[in-house]
């Protein structure tokens, strides 16, 4: 059982940041009415963050990642989450093998 102070500190900070998000919603935002512009901005947060993670990972790493990302999106239009995960891993492994 290894415990590194650096790792433990960062784990604590990630825990605090995540808990704060949940708590802020329950304590503050449940009482505040947002205007149309700020609520539109807030509602866009999930799609903005997810796309900002996905687009660079799929489009800046190389051809295998780009093709596998495309396949995962197409499969995801119909298939459930677990299938998308497996397809993403399998297709990137296959593409790296074929192209790399």
């Amino acid at each position, binding site marked *: 059982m*290894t*415990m*590194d102070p650096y*790792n433990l*500190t*960062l784990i*604590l*900070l*990630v*825990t605090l*940041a*995540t*808990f*704060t*998000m*949940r*708590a*802020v*919603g*329950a304590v503050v*935002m*449940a009482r505040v009415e947002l205007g*149309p*512009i*700020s609520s*539109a*901005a807030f*509602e*866009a*947060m*999930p*799609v*903005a*963050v*997810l*796309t*900002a*993670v*996905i*687009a*660079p*990972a*799929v*489009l*800046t790493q190389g051809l295998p*990642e780009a093709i*596998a990302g495309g396949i*995962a999106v197409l499969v*995801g*239009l119909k298939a*459930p*989450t*677990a299938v*998308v*995960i*497996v397809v*993403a891993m399998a297709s990137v*492994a296959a593409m*790296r*093998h074929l192209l790399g």
Partner: protein
Amino acid sequence: MTAGKQEFLDGFRLVLPILVAPISFSFITGATSVQKGLSAFEATLMSASVFAGGGQLLALEVWYEPQAWLLVMLAAISINVRFALQAASVQRKINHFTPLQRWLTIATLTDPAWGMSEVRHLSRQVTFWFISGITVPIYLIWVLGTLAGALLGKLIDDPTRLGLDFGFIGIFIALALPFWKRTGALPVAVASGAVAIAAKLAGFAALYVFIGAMAGVAMAGLMAHRKAKRAQMP
């Protein structure tokens, strides 16, 4: 307690078909954590205390960057800010809980617990046992799956050859698709995706997610502003 038991089973039955997602997600999180230099114990501790896979994986991406203490928090905040919206909505439906039950629910809120509570609320009052039936199995799987991934992930000498690193992207794509299909999502996605790519290529190794997301949010605000202005015109 019988009524509570029934409520718990109701939640459990709803969550059962989707448990395969946290199983694979937690395994990847554990494997990625040890790959990034955490011990199996630290990886499991992180899953038990953070309990939010997207934020954990994103934080691990910037774990050894300069100013990591700030970057891991920005990573967790940018991906987990959705919990603020979800908690705000759930809070309004659980006012009848005891304070302890309320805080347990908020502290362990997940996408499924939020979504299924919203649907449940349409037909009847949401109970603590109902939410527990959703959250307890997810939590147990999350912690044990991380441990399994941390222990077994060590045995795989090159995880990229098996595409394990891309499982994380698969999860994010599956999470994003329902949002991408909504009206008005395309300009937001294009703005955040394009700016995130530009920021990454420009060398903002750790901040590109945050920068891209802010561009997407700004685009959404701009669209709402223009719509409000159009509505004002006679």
